[in-house]
């Protein structure tokens, strides 16, 4: 093992040195134990039988080869044969072998020690191979995961580019044509100017939607959940529609002012985008002049914002698809002023802060989209000062 590691790390100066350093300390440790055992047994060699000596040496050989590898095991086996013969076989302190039985003992010790060392080394090599294999499998599976994520990101990018380039072209064509007409002094400059402004607004909305979605996809969007009131969010949402004809008048809010303000933990700016998207959808899909009702309530530890319109509703078959990016209902015209990203952005932003956006059919006609966010219960006197 040590040798293999050395071989692998010859270029890295530091690991190489530390590997040989650790091998040296392992050898020193076992050499020290061998000398200690020999000294102890030497001091009582008149009383102990050769069997005890042999067993203790065998133990040292095995221990040494486990921690120091095959080289240490073999060296120790050979060394112990000499030690047994020299110190513990009569005649003491001579290399001569007295009885033939002693010879058999030495040979069997050597054989046992060598075989055991070899087996241990093989087992260790096998274990190392298994570990390396497991690491390789893990590495490959991580790489496969990356590749899958990359493929997914690429696929998303393709859809994004295809869809966006199509959606951007309509307003760009209008703007270009009308602006050129104005530039050469064509009639109706005031009307055309208004159309250009409207189309530019549409472009601007699409660009920010696409930016949001790609930021959500790359997970670089950081949520900053804070204590907020539901009413503040509703007020800021309504604020977004000031200047759009009829919009604020059509939004009806239902809030129970007899109860303390409802609180929740959410990122105000991102949640404002969610609720604005839902209300914007409701205003567009509900027939002109019909109200959009925004109801605030709390249940089961969640704040609920219901956005109800009186539009045609969503067919059952499409109720999941509407949350997919770039989804467009089959019957809907292309010229709706949106790239079909609003709902998918809303849902992702909600889920990023432990909330949800769901769809339900309204009791009469129309749709109800519900945004749920974690509520916060605070004692009244703890808040109002």
């Amino acid at each position: 093992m040590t040798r293999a590691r050395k071989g692998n790390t010859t270029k890295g100066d530091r690991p190489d040195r530390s590997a040989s350093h650790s091998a040296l300390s392992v050898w020193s440790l076992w050499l020290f134990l061998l000398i200690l055992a020999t000294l102890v047994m030497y001091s009582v060699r008149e009383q102990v039988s050769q069997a005890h000596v042999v067993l203790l040496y065998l133990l040292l050989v095995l221990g040494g080869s486990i921690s120091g590898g095959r080289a240490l095991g073999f060296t120790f086996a050979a060394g112990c044969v000499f030690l047994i013969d020299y110190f513990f076989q009569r005649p003491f302190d001579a290399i001569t072998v007295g009885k033939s039985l002693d010879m058999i003992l030495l040979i069997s010790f050597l054989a046992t020690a060598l075989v055991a060392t070899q087996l241990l080394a093989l087992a260790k090599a096998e274990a190392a191979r298994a570990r390396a294999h497991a690491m390789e499998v893990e590495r490959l599976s991580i790489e496969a995961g990356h590749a899958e994520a990359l493929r997914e990101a690429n696929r998303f990018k393709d859809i994004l580019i295809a869809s966006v380039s199509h959606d951007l072209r309509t307003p760009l064509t209008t703007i270009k044509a009308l602006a050129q007409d104005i530039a050469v002094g064509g009639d109706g400059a005031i009307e055309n100017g208004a159309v250009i402004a409207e189309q530019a607004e549409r472009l601007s909305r699409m660009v920010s939607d696409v930016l949001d979605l790609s930021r959500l996809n790359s997970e670089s969007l950081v949520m900053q959940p804070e204590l907020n009131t539901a009413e503040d969010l509703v007020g800021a949402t309504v604020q977004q529609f000031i200047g759009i004809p009829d919009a604020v008048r059509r939004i009806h809010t239902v809030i129970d002012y007899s109860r303390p303000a409802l609180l929740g933990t959410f990122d105000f700016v991102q949640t404002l985008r969610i609720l604005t998207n839902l209300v914007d959808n409701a205003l567009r899909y509900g027939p002109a002049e019909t109200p959009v009702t925004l109801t605030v309530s709390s249940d089961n530890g969640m704040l609920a914002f219901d956005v109800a319109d009186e539009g045609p509703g969503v067919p059952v078959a499409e109720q999941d698809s509407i949350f997919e990016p770039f989804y467009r209902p089959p019957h809907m015209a292309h010229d709706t002023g949106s790239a079909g990203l609003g709902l998918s952005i809303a849902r992702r932003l909600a889920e990023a802060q432990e909330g949800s956006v769901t769809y339900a059919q309204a009791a009469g006609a129309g749709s109800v989209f519900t945004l749920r966010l974690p509520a916060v219960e605070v004692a009244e006197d703890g808040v109002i000062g």
Partner: protein
Amino acid sequence: MTNTVLIIEDEAQIHRAVRASLRNVTTNILEATTGQAGLNTVTTQHPDLIILDLGLPDIPGIRVCQMIRTTSTAPILVLTARHDEAEKVALLNAGADDYVTKPFGTSELAARVAAQLRRARTSKPWPESILTIDGLVIDLTKRVVTRSGVPVRLTPTEWTLLRTLATDPGRVMTHQQIFEAVWQRQYGDFRQYLRVHITNLRRKIERDPAKPRIVITEPGVGYRFSVPS
């Protein structure tokens, strides 16, 4: 009296758009294409309002803001390309008075500029002691708030909050600035309750608390007291 507006902007097209937006506000427009030139113009010409683009080639916008503030109290309106609330907060804390995000509409920019000019005229050195806004009458000296002659009862915190915001109508105050003005002498974590107090205040002073017209939320930045019309 015509107001002088300085535009510090390096892109000619945006210059043109800003100029077009201001056609009905003022015709007295000064131009600078770098931060340094802008700073020089501020000290020599004393403009009534400064429109500052953040992406200048020579000096970071926030630094320009701070440097203008050492010599001038004229309102600074910042043009920014990013929907980055942290950046807006930093700018407001550095002395800017308002910001408009690109792409902006001509009417939006004109309205903001007009509001800041009106604010600069009326809020110096101290606003009138009685403000009337959306039917609400706030008497800052007598500490009385009424709607249609009926007194509106506010808690001490709500009163301090209202007075802080009403002292500078039209100016965006960051959460931090409001917090420091209202709770400066108190201990404890009142900051997170700011939004709760605003909500309670709105329930008492707004006609429809869900469609506020007096205390306006600036998402992720702070609050703004509407300019009385």
